[in-house]
């Protein structure tokens, strides 16, 4: 019975609305600013259509002081490259 309940959890977790598949550290915060369904609100650049490689490359560039970010450079500096890759992969997998 208990195993069944766990299985059920895992299945629900696979639905795209809230992808429970263990968010890697930091990943669940992204959607507070970046709407999962594109940039309807305008303003903050949308990431919904970006590939994992694009997201990773942008974050690493910001870390290195490149590009024209406002706040993402300050945030990117809090993560290691493997962490950034994991976040990008998770964001894309959850679509």
């Amino acid at each position, binding site marked *: 019975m208990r195993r069944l*309940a766990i299985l059920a*959890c895992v299945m629900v977790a696979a639905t795209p609305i809230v992808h*429970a598949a263990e968010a890697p550290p930091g990943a669940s915060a992204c959607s507070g600013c970046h709407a999962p369904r594109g940039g309807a609100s305008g303003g903050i650049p949308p990431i919904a259509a970006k590939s994992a490689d694009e997201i990773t490359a942008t974050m690493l560039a910001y870390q290195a002081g490149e590009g024209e970010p*406002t*706040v993402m450079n300050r*945030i990117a500096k809090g993560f290691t490259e493997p962490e950034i890759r994991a976040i990008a992969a998770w964001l894309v997998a959850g679509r």
Partner: protein
Amino acid sequence: MTPWNPNRRAVLKTLTAATVTVTASAALSRPVHAQGAARVVVIGGGFAGGTAARFLKGHGLDVTLVEPNPTYTACPLSNSVVAGLRSLDRQTFGYDGLRRAGVTVVHQRASKVDAEARRVTLGDGVALDYDRLVLAPGIDMNFGALPGYDDKAAEIMPHAWKAGPQTTLLARQLEAMEDGGVVVMSVPANPYRCPPGPYERASLIAHYLKTRKPRSKLIVLDAKDSFSKQRLFQAAWEKLYPGLLEWVSLSSGGQVTSVDPASLTLVTDFDRVKAAVANVIPPQKAASIAALAEVADRTGWCPIDPVTFESRLRPGIHVIGDAAIAGAMPKSAFAANAQAKVCAAAVATLLRGEKPAAPKLINTCYSLVAPDYGISVAGVYAPSDGRLADVEGAGGTSPLDAPASFRAKEAVYAESWFDTITAEVFG
């Protein structure tokens, strides 16, 4: 300022001992539900509780959200309402979105929490059993900490620190004030909800006075010598509101020690300041249900584990948002939302009998210094030595020397963030 109490250690020790006992008995009497999804009750439908409810549901749990109000009025951007730049309607959200997501929403006030029996009692007497409880009740004004100030005084000297009628009241008072009047704000010592919030409000009130009542003045009486984004705020004030906004720091005698609503007077250690409009932001504490549930400590706030947000005082109860002592994280809507997601995942993991991994959390707070002039502060946080600490090298404020286009962009982002986060929580 707080008197040191030699018995504090002893008290803490007793508390720890009590906690251990409760853990053992709770674990024995209440195994995780074998049938159906585990039940989680969330108290409080704000940024923290609303987010938690949605994400707990997403993790396949049976979620009941307890919130007394039929609608939620959001604080972020409410300073623009105070300054007549935005309508309060745009701050107001309903709970149908959460219902559609499968959350059971009960419009009642939680009046009692029995941590041992794992049961919440509502205002109407109904009892809700839970496997885990998420407490997200926000703040209460700590009226006892400011002599002369209470609910009644707040009708004369509004705090407007919970958005709603108080916000409207302060906006109306500013509107009704004659040109030439002195507006006085009182800002508390840390910790309190939204560290840069009072300075955003001061900026936008100054903007209102400058554009509508240019002979008026704003005095900000502060119980602190330094504050969030201080250099950015002060540089902007000098540029935009010279001679109009006076900030009086703690060491300049800025701490308000009592207020007299009858004469609209704020009393400091060295002065009595009479106001035409007084905005008193009093000291605060976790909302009263936290003390009733025995998860608040003697500071008035709730100590938590930085990985799971589980209370350090009562097992099975997680505390998120403004009510929690989240280490280096500020009390912000962004932080509440980020904490809620981490907490929801941890609760789901714990209910599966597994151990949650260490999270990383993020915060970004925008403040408007003028309608087209935004600034931000950000941070990245991780558990370290039992508390949430700043990740070194990350975070910080907008650059001091940024061009106007950068400030304009951050002003747009402030609103964009608000739209996205409120859609995520209530949409």
